[in-house]
C-alpha cells in the first residue's frame, strides 16, 4: 500500500513539473514529422524569442483536440492533406484568422473562404514511368485502367490520404459509377498488392517489377538527394499527368488555428512566418514541395522537371468526396 502511495506521489510530482508553462510560446499538434518541422520553427524562435513546442502523431490528434476541448494547450495544427484540414474546420475545432499578411501570401484558392485554414505548400500526384520501358509515353490518370498496362503498375495503399484524395478527384470529374469502373480496371493492372510508400514505388520501377507508379513529386527529389538511393531514380522519369486536359491532381499541406488557442497572437505570428519568404524557401529547397507564396521560387531540381498545369478543382470538392472514395476502395477491395 505504501508503495502505491509513494508511486502516486512520484507521478504527481512528475505531472506538475511538466505542467509548467513558459511566457511566450506556441504549441503545435503536428501530423508532419518533427524533423521537417523543427528546422523551420527554430529560425522563428531565434528571430522572435517565441518558443515553439510540438507534439507529432500521425493518427488521432483531431480526436485528442476534441476531447481536450476548451482546456487544450494546442494553438496550431499542421497537416499534410486537405481532408484533415477540412475535418478540423467541419468539427468546429478551428477559428478564423484575420491577417493581411496571410491573405497576401496565400492565394485565395489555397485558403479557406472563411480563413479557417491556410495551405503552406502544394504537392502533385505524379506518375513515375520507367525511362526504358515507357519511352516516349505520356499518360493520364484515366490510362491507369487501360488493359494494355496489365501487371505494369505499382502504388501505395489505396487508403493512404494521398491516394484517397486522387480517387476523390476522379469522382468529382467522372461521377461515382465511372470512377468505380476506373478503379476496378486500375486494380486489375496492379503488378503487386498496394504496399510501401512512394519511395518504394520508384525502387520497384528501377528493379523492373513494374513500369508505372503513382507518387508525390517531392519523393522523387528526395531520392535524388540521397546518395545511396539516387541510383533508383536514374532509370525513372517523373511526369505530370493530364496536361492536355484538366491538369495534374494537387494536394496541399496546411495549418489552422485552434478554436481555443491560448497563445493566439504568437500563433498568428508563426502562421505568418510560415507563409513568409524564409520558411517558404525552406519548404521549397529542403522539402522539395511547391511553395504557396508567389515570388518564392521552386528549387532548381524541382524546376528541372518543368512547368505543369494543375487541376483547378476546388479543394473542398476533394475533401467532400472522401467518404465516397473510401467506400469505393472497400467495394473494389483495392488493397486486398
Amino acid at each position, binding site marked *: 500500500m505504501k508503495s502505491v502511495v509513494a508511486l502516486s506521489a512520484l507521478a504527481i510530482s512528475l505531472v506538475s513539473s511538466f505542467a509548467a508553462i513558459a511566457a511566450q510560446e506556441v504549441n503545435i499538434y503536428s501530423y508532419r514529422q518533427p524533423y521537417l518541422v523543427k528546422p523551420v520553427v527554430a529560425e522563428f524562435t531565434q528571430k522572435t524569442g517565441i518558443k515553439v513546442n510540438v*507534439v507529432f502523431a500521425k493518427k488521432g490528434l483531431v480526436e485528442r483536440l476534441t476531447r481536450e476541448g476548451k482546456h487544450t494547450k494546442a494553438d496550431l495544427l499542421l497537416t499534410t492533406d486537405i481532408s484533415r484540414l477540412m475535418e478540423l474546420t467541419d468539427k468546429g475545432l478551428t477559428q478564423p484568422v484575420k491577417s493581411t499578411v496571410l491573405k497576401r501570401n496565400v492565394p485565395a484558392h489555397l485558403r479557406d473562404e472563411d480563413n479557417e485554414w491556410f495551405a503552406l505548400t502544394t504537392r502533385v500526384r505524379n506518375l513515375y514511368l520507367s525511362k526504358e520501358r515507357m519511352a516516349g509515353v505520356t499518360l493520364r490518370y484515366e490510362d491507369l485502367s487501360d488493359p494494355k498496362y496489365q501487371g505494369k503498375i505499382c502504388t501505395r495503399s489505396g487508403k493512404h490520404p494521398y491516394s484517397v484524395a486522387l480517387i476523390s478527384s476522379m469522382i468529382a470529374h467522372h461521377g461515382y459509377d465511372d470512377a468505380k469502373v476506373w478503379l476496378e480496371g486500375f486494380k486489375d493492372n496492379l503488378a503487386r498488392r498496394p504496399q510501401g510508400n512512394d519511395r518504394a514505388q520508384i525502387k520497384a520501377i528501377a528493379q523492373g517489377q513494374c513500369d508505372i507508379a503513382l507518387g508525390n513529386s517531392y519523393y522523387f527529389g528526395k531520392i535524388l538527394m540521397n546518395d545511396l538511393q539516387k541510383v533508383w531514380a536514374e532509370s525513372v522519369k517523373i511526369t505530370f499527368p493530364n496536361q492536355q486536359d484538366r491538369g495534374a491532381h494537387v494536394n496541399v499541406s496546411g495549418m489552422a488555428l485552434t478554436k481555443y488557442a491560448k497563445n493566439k497572437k504568437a500563433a498568428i505570428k508563426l502562421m505568418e512566418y510560415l507563409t513568409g519568404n524564409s520558411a517558404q524557401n525552406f519548404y521549397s529547397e529542403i522539402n522539395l514541395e511547391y511553395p504557396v507564396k508567389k515570388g518564392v521560387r521552386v528549387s532548381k531540381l524541382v524546376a528541372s522537371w518543368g512547368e505543369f498545369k494543375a487541376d483547378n478543382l476546388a479543394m473542398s470538392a476533394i475533401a467532400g468526396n472522401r467518404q465516397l472514395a473510401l467506400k469505393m476502395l472497400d467495394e473494389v477491395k483495392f488493397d486486398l
Partner: protein
Amino acid sequence: MFINLNIKWPAFSWLLSLLLFSPLLAIIWQSFGDDHNIFSHLWQTVLPDYLLNTLLVVIGVAVSSMLIGVPLAWLIAMCQFPMRGFFVWALLLPLAMPSYVVAYIYTDLFEYAGPVQRWLREFFSWQSPQDYWFFEIRSVSGAIAMLTLVLFPYVYLLARTAFLEQSTSLLHSSRMLGCSPWQSFVRISLPLARPAISVAIALVAMESLADFAVVNYFSVPTLTTAVYDTWLGYGSLAAAARLSAMMIAVLFVLISIERLGRSKQQLYQKTTGQETKERFELRGFNAFITVLFCSLIFGLAFLLPFVTLIDLAIDYFEQSWNEQFIQYSINSLMLATIVSVCCIVIGLLLSFYKRLSNQRYAYIPSKISSTGYALPGTVLAIGVLIPLSFLDHQLNELFEWLGREGPGLILSGSLFAIVVGYVVRFVAIAIGSIESSFNKVTPSLDMVSTTLGLSPLQMLIRVHLPLVRKGCFAAALLVFIESMKELPAALLLRPFNFETLATYVYQYVSDEQLELGALAAIVIVMVGLIPLIFLNRSLEQQH
C-alpha cells in the same frame, strides 16, 4: 477459502481494476453511438477478409511461438550443451527488438528490389518477376514470421521460468519410476509448465491481435486495420469501437477454450531449497542439432537485424547523430521503470486477492484489468483520453466554481496520461506471469501462515513474495522492454516536446527511412539489454 479478508482488499481490488478497465469501458460506451451504417458496409465488403487474416495471423503466431519457445526453454533449463551459457541470455535479446524495425529490415532484404532477389536474378540471369517464383515477404505468412521472431521470447522466458521453478524431486521420482527423459518431459514437466505456457501464448496472441505496425507495413489488412480505417478514414469512433469490442471477444473465446482444457487440473509443488539441479548432458549429434537450432533462431531474430542496424548506423552516422539521444534515453528509461513498478505492484495485489478471496467473482478484477493488452495502441490511447480528459474538465470546473483559475489538463495533458496508458496496456503481462507463479505455491503455505497469525499483507510480503520473486522479475522485465518499444500510445498521449527513443525512431520508420533512425534503434536495444542481463542472473543464480 479459509481466510477472512476484511473489506479493504476486495474494495481496493475492485476499484483498481475498474480504473484499469475504464478506458475499455469508454470504448464500449462509444460503440453504442451511431455509426452511420459503416459497420454493415464493412461487413458486406472487406470485413470477412480482414477477419480471416486476423485469425490466421493470431493463430499462426501463437502456434509458431510455442513450437520455437517451448523446446528452447526446455533445452536451456534442463540440458547441458556447448554454448548453453551464451544462449541462456542471447535468446532473450530478440525481445529488445521493436517489431516494426525487424519487419522493415527483412522486407528490405527479401522484397523484389532487395539484395537477395537481386542476387538471384543476376546469378540465374532472370529478367522479370514472371521468370521465377519467390516467396512474398509482404504477406500473411511474412507477418506471422516477423511477429513470431519478436514474440517467441515470451514463451521462452515464461516457460523457462516455469521449468526452473519445477521441483527436481518430481522429475527424479518420475525417472526412478521408469520414465525416459522424453516421457518425463511430456508427463511431468510439460503439464506442470502448462499454466505458464498458456499465459505466454495468450500474451503473444494479444500482442499480435493488437499489432498495427507490422501488418500495416506488410499491407496485410486485419481487424486492427479496419479499426483505424473506420475511425480515421470514416471518422466513426462508434464503428471503430464496435470492431475493437469484436477483437476482445475473439480473444476471450481463445483464452476460455484453453482455460476449459485445464479446468480440472490442480497443480502444486514445493521445492525444498536443498535440491541440486542436474542437467541432462547432451553430446554428439544431439548437441550439434541443439546448438544449430539455438543459433538459427538467435541469428534470425536478433543477430541479422542488429548487424543490419549497425551497418545502417555507420553509413548514416553523421545525419543521424543527435545530442539529444541521452535525454531521449533517460525519458524512455524513466517511463519504462515507473510503468514496470506500477504493473508489478498491481499484478501482485490483484493476483493475491484472487488467491485468498472466497468470493465467487474474485477472479474478475484481474481478468478485466488484463483486457487493455489486446487493444491497438491508438485506440487504447483514445480510451485513456476519454476518462482522463473528462476528469480534467470536472476538476477545472470545480476550480472555477471555487473562483480560482483551473489547473488545465493536468491528467490528460501530462506524463500521467502516458503512464496510465502503458500500465493499462501492459499490466496484463504482469498479472499473467505473477498469477502463474502464484498457482505453483501450495495452499498449505497459506494455511500454515494464517495459523501462525500472519495478516494477509504480511503473508504476501514474507511468504509469497520470496516464492514468486522470479515470476515478478520476469514480468518486470517484459513490461520494461515492452514499454521501451511501445509506440502508438506514446505518440498520441505525450506532452509537448516529450520524445522517447521509440517515438524518435518511428518518425523515420513511418517515412521508410530507417537508416536515419538506426542509431536510435540500436540505443533502444542496448538499453533493453541492461535489465535482461539483470534478470538472467537472478534466474540462473540458484541453479
